[in-house]
């Protein structure tokens, strides 16, 4: 049997990875909760944001953490425009059209990245990449601790924004009752685009937090798509709390799966959880009944 110390370290590392997953999944669940669409381009957009962070560092020398506000704002604008010009306009309001359009977009983004950036694995060398913090038997990489704290902080800020601000209230109103929101004078199409933009902004922030410890290739998005969908389905489509809890569960599952089953077979846990949740309890842990 494995040493409990090692398992403890595995769980901690899983929790840290889960922090980033939460941020990615919150964006996805927000888009689903408000627009009722499945954003299949989520992983590809994360990949694009990661390349933005990479090139900012390579060409201008901007540290990923310093780049965070810029990339987040840029991602918001990109998402907003993408929804306004392509997704919202072309889907004619049909759920399956959106899935196909976002699939088409992800094909375009992935291959455009391959065309322009090449297939090489790109990483960022930051001076603090090798720093560790010791916690019992576990050595935790400093950048992962930072990304964990920062992504939770961003989620809390987003939660407060949704609860308190006028735009946040409008978003929740549209999510709950589209027609009613329109009747009280909310510009629903604008709220759709803003929500999509916020969902993509989460990816921008996640990309900045990921890059110090992760790498990017044109297919990086694929690795996150299924993970993000699994978290959202596990937590319950559209539920913020669900995305947070789901993110940690998946992070730990991945870490322990890798520990017990090895790198290759360890990934199977996520897909199996996804399938089982959809088959047995499609509303997830915190989802409301449809």
């Amino acid at each position, binding site marked *: 049997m494995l040493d409990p110390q090692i398992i403890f370290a595995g769980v901690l590392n899983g929790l840290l990875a889960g922090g980033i997953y939460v941020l990615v999944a919150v964006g996805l669940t927000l888009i689903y909760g408000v627009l009722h669409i499945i954003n299949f381009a989520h992983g590809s957009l994360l990949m694009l944001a990661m390349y933005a962070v990479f090139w900012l560092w390579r060409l201008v020398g901007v540290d990923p953490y310093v780049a965070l506000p810029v990339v987040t704002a840029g991602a918001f604008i990109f998402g907003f425009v993408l929804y306004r010009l392509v997704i919202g306009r072309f889907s004619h309001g049909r759920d399956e*059209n959106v899935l196909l359009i976002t699939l088409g977009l992800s*094909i375009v983004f992935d291959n455009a990245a391959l065309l322009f950036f090449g297939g090489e694995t790109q990483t960022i060398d930051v001076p603090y990449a090798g720093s560790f913090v010791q916690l019992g038997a576990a050595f935790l990489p400093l950048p992962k601790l930072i990304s964990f704290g920062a992504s939770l902080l961003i989620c809390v800020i987003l939660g407060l924004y949704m609860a308190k601000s006028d735009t946040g209230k409008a978003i929740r109103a549209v999510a709950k009752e589209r027609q009613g929101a329109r009747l009280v004078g909310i510009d629903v199409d604008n709220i759709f685009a803003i929500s999509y933009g916020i969902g993509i902004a989460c990816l921008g922030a996640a990309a900045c937090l990921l890059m110090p410890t992760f790498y990017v290739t044109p297919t990086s998005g694929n690795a996150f798509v299924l993970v993000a969908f699994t978290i959202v389905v596990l937590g319950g489509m559209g539920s913020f709390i669900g995305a947070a809890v789901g993110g940690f569960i998946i992070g730990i599952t991945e870490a322990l799966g890798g520990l017990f089953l*090895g790198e290759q077979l360890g990934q199977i846990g996520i897909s199996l959880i996804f399938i089982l949740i959809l088959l047995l309890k499609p509303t997830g842990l915190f989802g409301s009944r449809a």
Partner: protein
Amino acid sequence: MSRQAVLCAVGLGIAVIYPLLAPNYLINIGMMVFFVAFIGQSWNIAGGFAGQTSFGHVVFFGTGAYTSTILQVTYSWNPWLAWPAAMLAGGIVGWIIAFLSFRAGLRGSYFALITLAFAEVFRILANSVPFTRGGLGMLIKADQRPINFQFKDPIWIYYIALVLCVISLLIAWRLTRNRFGARLVAIRENEDAARALGIDVFAEKVKVLTLSGAMCAAGGTFYAQKYLYIDPSIAFGVDKSVEMLLVSMVGGAGTIFGPLIGSVALTVINEVTRGLASVVPALKNVQPLSLVVYGIMLVLIVARLPDGLMGLFRRKPRHA
């Protein structure tokens, strides 16, 4: 004979004569066109006719490729005998996935996502279990005799692809004529209304996915015999799933000739970008460029041409 029948006969005649006149590399391109049209049609039967959009159809393709290859390499089966076994395996996997998903009431986007997850499970398993030799992949010993489903002259593999394609067209054509096909279209258009009319929606959907899975698995065996090599990312990778969906959607989902038209379009785009690449050195990387074009086409077609390229031919109203 109707005009369509004449057109079909002429088209088939050209397809039969073509390899006798074309050089080898053009024969290979023709072979790929028919092969992709065939696996595209297997997607189209479930995704187009019955409206059950799948993102993980490659799970059937890979099941077929691995079943026949394992039977052949590990158990010394003759590949011609392993072929129906592979189709059976694909059908069974289709039945199981359909049974589980449709029993749970998954529809639309959720069904698309769960098929993707099933393909991912199969890919990881093929990477990990011993009898597939993991990530190393499996080599089929080269022994170019027809009895081994291997041919010296590419013309034979071309004709097999053509036959597969024609069979798939006939199946699709039958679906536009028989009651089973009509029930599938009813389910696609409005599942609840179809149920209200007394259609056993669950049974029909399971049936169509079983058929589609068996067809797609046949394509997997064909592919393995053509290249004599498979590995988990070829057999269960996302790329093939996307290719099948793309050719059907671009050509025209739910139409008989949609996947074939889409496959021709994909090949033309491929060859044009290849030609461009030889002129403009900056475009060395051909494959991604043509996929960018194809992704854009998918978006535009969903937005403007729900019947795909086939819709262009039908622009004129039928009863004018």
